């Protein structure tokens, strides 16, 4: 194996790795630690990485980052991935189309805070799809769930964001 291959192929995805870990840990010190730990894990299992394209390598890396983040969250006793139940996170009443409501700047000011307030499973979906702008299929692969699950998590996450922003604007 080319000795510098890991650095050449995996380090270019550092921003994506850090962005995910920063959103998941919600602070910059832990985000750096988690990203670094994930890279070390990635290096150790690099031999088993079967990615042949930059996109596949990114997905492979982000899956490791994601798992490292969730382990970190679990250790801190935060919302546990293992206890996440799709059903209990179903919204009471689904509006026909969450996207139809108007978003003004006052509401958008609360966007970052609202994203941080999402449960980890929703947050990672939003970060990977809307902020990192990865294809649905790749997001599903990273989260290790079927694409339909990601679609429904995203739909519910967007609706929650909208509710959160509307509520914060109202109380502001």
């Amino acid at each position, binding site marked *: 194996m080319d*000795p510098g291959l*890991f*650095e050449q192929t995996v*380090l270019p995805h*550092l*921003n994506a*790795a*850090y*962005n995910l870990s*920063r*959103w998941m840990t919600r602070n*910059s010190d832990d*985000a*750096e630690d988690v*990203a*670094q730990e994930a*890279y*070390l*894990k990635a*290096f*150790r*299992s690099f*031999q*088993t990485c*079967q990615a042949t394209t930059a996109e596949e390598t990114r997905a*492979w890396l982000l*899956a*490791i980052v*994601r*798992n490292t983040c969730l*382990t970190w969250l*679990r250790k801190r006793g935060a919302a546990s991935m*293992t206890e996440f139940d799709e059903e209990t996170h179903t919204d009471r009443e689904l509006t026909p189309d*969450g*996207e*139809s*409501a*108007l*978003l003004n700047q006052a509401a*958008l000011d609360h*966007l*970052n805070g609202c*994203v941080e307030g999402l449960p980890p499973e929703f947050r990672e979906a*939003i970060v990977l799809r*809307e*902020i990192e*702008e990865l294809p649905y299929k790749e997001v599903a692969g*990273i989260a*290790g769930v079927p694409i339909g699950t990601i679609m429904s998590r995203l739909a519910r996450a*967007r609706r929650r*964001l*909208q509710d959160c922003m509307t509520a914060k604007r109202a109380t502001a």
Partner: protein
Amino acid sequence: MSCEISRRLMESGESASAVKAHTASCLSCAIGENARYYEAPAGLEQKIRASVAAERRQPTRRNWWAAAAVALLAVSGALTLDLVRQSGNATETAVLSAHLRSLEGTHLLDVPSSDQHTVKPWFNGKLDFSPAVPSFPDFPLLGGRLEYLEGRPAAALIYGRGQHIINLFIWHASGTSLEKTWTSNGYHFIRWTKDRMNYWAVSDVNTPELERFAALYRAN
């Protein structure tokens, strides 16, 4: 209107009002355009390069020895047995220290769960194989952990037997080794290979109990 279409229209300068109307209402676009993107801080890349370089220095030496051992295996039958025995001892040491580390209380479980449907998917993305994760009435599953053995990622499954802990390590085998039960340093070991995977169970429970556990796991 999808965001993609909206963006393209925006770039082409067409139907600006339609685009504006869409952007104002499209939450997906709004998140993408307004949420913060955290770029890696300066210095993080250097830290990672340094830790990778440090990591590389150690296993490389081990890989070199492994390569040398393989080369010798091909040449000499007499030496072969010795080397195999030695590498078996190295693995035994690694397995035992992983077992002992896990008992120190700092790092027994990465995924604490008695539910096999939680533990099994947890290994996704961490391993390039999917271990069987059964639980037994006499040997309840306590959880899973990631280990590295012989330079490969390994699944560690943790089972309980009364107050005792059994660690079962599973990783890719480079060859087939015979099933074996033995005791070393007061700990009992059973190893076997199946479908090109190594299985090593280690515990302080007595050998018949450990054998019973191995039989249950293999029958599963």
